[in-house]
């Protein structure tokens, strides 16, 4: 089967890959671009572990084909910190012990960042509904919610 050539931008860098038409964006990011921070938890868009942004919009990369990334701007967890400067969300997740096993953490951070870009001052309820597409089995979400709210408060103060 012939492969499709894709040129796209991942975390600001131009990348090219060849992919099978059936490969998902998740497969391509992990296996063709090497972005192993993007995780597969379900492959059916139910768990959010593979969350990335495509042209600024939050998507489950397991629900999009790799071929559809042509010409898009993809953002993954690997692009979240600014060099050695962690994003406030990343810092607060560590400080609040908002991760236990950590497998859902990249997806939740990407999803939370997408929310704060749209709504820098979410209520707890808004945040809980926004993150309802990101499953965490370890924490019961308590410390995740606290970490995001705390990061949001700091970011509002800094801006």
């Amino acid at each position, binding site marked *: 089967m012939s492969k499709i050539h894709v040129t796209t931008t991942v975390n600001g860098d131009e990348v090219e890959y060849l992919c099978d038409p059936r490969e998902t964006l998740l497969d391509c990011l992990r296996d063709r671009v090497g972005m192993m921070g993007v995780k597969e*938890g379900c492959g059916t868009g139910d768990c959010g572990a593979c969350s990335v942004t495509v042209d600024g919009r939050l998507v489950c990369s397991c629900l999009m084909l790799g071929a559809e990334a042509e010409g898009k701007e993809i953002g993954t967890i690997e692009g979240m910190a600014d060099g050695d400067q962690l994003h406030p969300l990343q810092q607060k997740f560590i400080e609040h012990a908002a991760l236990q096993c950590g497998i859902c953490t990249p997806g939740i951070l990407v999803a939370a960042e997408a929310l704060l870009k749209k709504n820098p001052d979410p209520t707890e309820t808004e945040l809980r509904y926004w993150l309802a597409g990101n499953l965490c089995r370890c924490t*019961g979400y*308590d410390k995740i919610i606290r970490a995001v709210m705390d990061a949001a408060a700091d970011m509002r103060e800094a801006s």
Partner: protein
Amino acid sequence: MALDGSKPQFKLLGTRPNRPDGLDKVTGRARYGADLNAPGQLHGAILRSPHAHARIVSIDASKALALKGVKAVVTRADFATGLTGDDWNMQENCMAGEKALYDGHAVAAVAATTPLLAKDAAKLIEVEYEILPHVTDVDEAMKEGAPVIRDGAADYSVPDGLHPNVVRYYENGKGDLEAGFAEADLIVERSFKTEAAHQGYIEPHACLAQLGTDGQGELWCCTQGHWFVRQMCTAALGIETSQLKVTPSEIGGGFGGKTTVFIDPVALALSRKAGGTPVKLVMSRSEVLRATGPTASASMDIKMGMTKDGRITAASGVFRMQGGAFPGAPVDVTTDLAFANYRIENVHHVGYDVMTNRPKQAAYRAPGAPMAAFACESVVDEMATKLGIDPLDIRLKNGVVEGDRSTYGPKVKKVGLIETLEAAKAHPNYAAPLGPNQGRGVASGYWMNWGGDTSASVAIGEDGAVAVTVGTPDIGGSRASMALMAAETFGIPYENVRVHIADTASLGINEPTHGSRATFASGLAVIQSAKECIQKMCVRAAEKWDIDPDAVTWEDGFAKPSGPNAGDFEPLSIAEIAGEMSDTGGPIAGHFEANPGKFGGSFGTHVVDVEVDPETGRTTILRYLVVQDAGKAIHPSYVEGQFQGGAVQGIGWALNEEYVYGPDGRLQNPIFLDYRVPVASDLPMIDTVIVEVPNPGHPYGVRGVGETGITPPLPAIANAVAAATGVRFTELPLSPPKVLAGIKAAKHA
């Protein structure tokens, strides 16, 4: 090694530093099971039975093997023969032999150059099945005439006359049941059912395996216990344990479900068949739900007697546990822990381990305990309500304390049940006002915890920094607690300790991170190893000062003369001693190899407020409080995290999660959309209170905390729903249709 009474004040224990692996895990750098690739690797895929019960007549892989890029196909014929007992069960579960025993049972596997090709090839493997009658319900499986899963699977414990699907029988009791019930003013008798729930770890099982024709291999995999993986894989393949090195990846959740193997022996067999080429094998979510995990399901009868003033006089229980197509449902734990919260003179329990055409049950957080707690704590709650006694008071009156004889036999050691009840009573949540359709539920729960085979090492670097090496994978922040305990023992900064999780070639055997044992047992091993290092460093200082080693003490990271009589020497820091170690006798390290037995059990009490929508039957959790005894919370944030996570898993099991089998014996909900675990919008904050009743069997008083937290939620929520609706529900989950039907039935009654 007993509680270190000489050090009541801690400098570091109880603080909340950042976890050492935090940076890797918030940047996406941490490498989990599916994140490692090897040059030239192949990709595996497994063909699974679509039938609940079927004889495998033939397997024809010729079409698959004819595809360009397909390198190997394995079936059961490629595994070792002659296994018995648990090894046979494990091997049979990883790859079916004569029969497929459940929907999703592996029957063949293929390795090919790409993941898509492997999946395509698996579909081309032709299997001829002879479909057999099946059974998936525990009560049905025990009935006369039920399909026999495997004749001869029962062990010596099963009395004559029971169905061959009953494979283990367990009985335990004391006192005079009849006299106990005669003494009671109130007797309540009820039957309960719980469905199987899956551990639901977000990371599917994944591994990268290489096994040469010389019998030497390496395996990278996500597991709670890589020595267990090594033992199981080598048994399944017929090679010696030392020939396989297993390296644990970071692990994306386990909750007990990653203490065994499903795909690892298959990947190794594929690699061997493909001439030693590495094979990567990653499960899909539906494979995880169909063929790994879940808990046992249970069918239970409980009878309890109580005097008017709330004293429990007698209790009896029958527990029928369904553990899939293999023996191993946690029938002993379920029965033993059923009434373990209480001081009861007259008690009797019976348990049945029952096979059905379902996946082999695996451990899930306090395996077996939540089901029994649901049944027993529901009955206690009903009795308290009928007698007009506060549910916490009834537990305070009957709750076990040190020195009591437990319901299952041993004497109760120092435990903190009463302390959790008192703390729950004093918490503002217990006094919060409730509105219409709202109810409050209370329940307590217990897990006895575990020690187990433990091996660790602590080595001093040339600059005085400390490398801690343990064999228990870090599943929820244990690197932080190990580093805290090591730093506390040495009297050095937390940041000067680095904790490593070793592969199977680098330490003696270790049991997994299971049984709530890592912080207790690996922690104790680290403390002991650190003390050995300190003792060696004191000797180096004594030799340098030319004084007796007994005249040297260790304080805050320095060797010091123990008093004025010992001599007047400048204290030597760990860095100074380490810097000279090559000239003063060589490397300095400490080791620990044992199985610490003085683990202390942990009690917890939960208080939950719910609102039940009378129109839809939907239950909303309004408030949730976890109070639990941690002995000593080494890193309180991760202790709270265990409390909160356990509670929310329990909320899922109580309200939503269940295995749904169709009449065809196939799992109806093998994706997260339909197997619905709690999401953020389902929940409030989970309030926690850490009670600290130190465990006398650990130098710093640690008790395991991981598992107790899932034990009280099932009954606490059922009790709250009963309070909100006036209807006592006896079958989980309390899904909206079930609750709505119950409310409607009560109205018409």
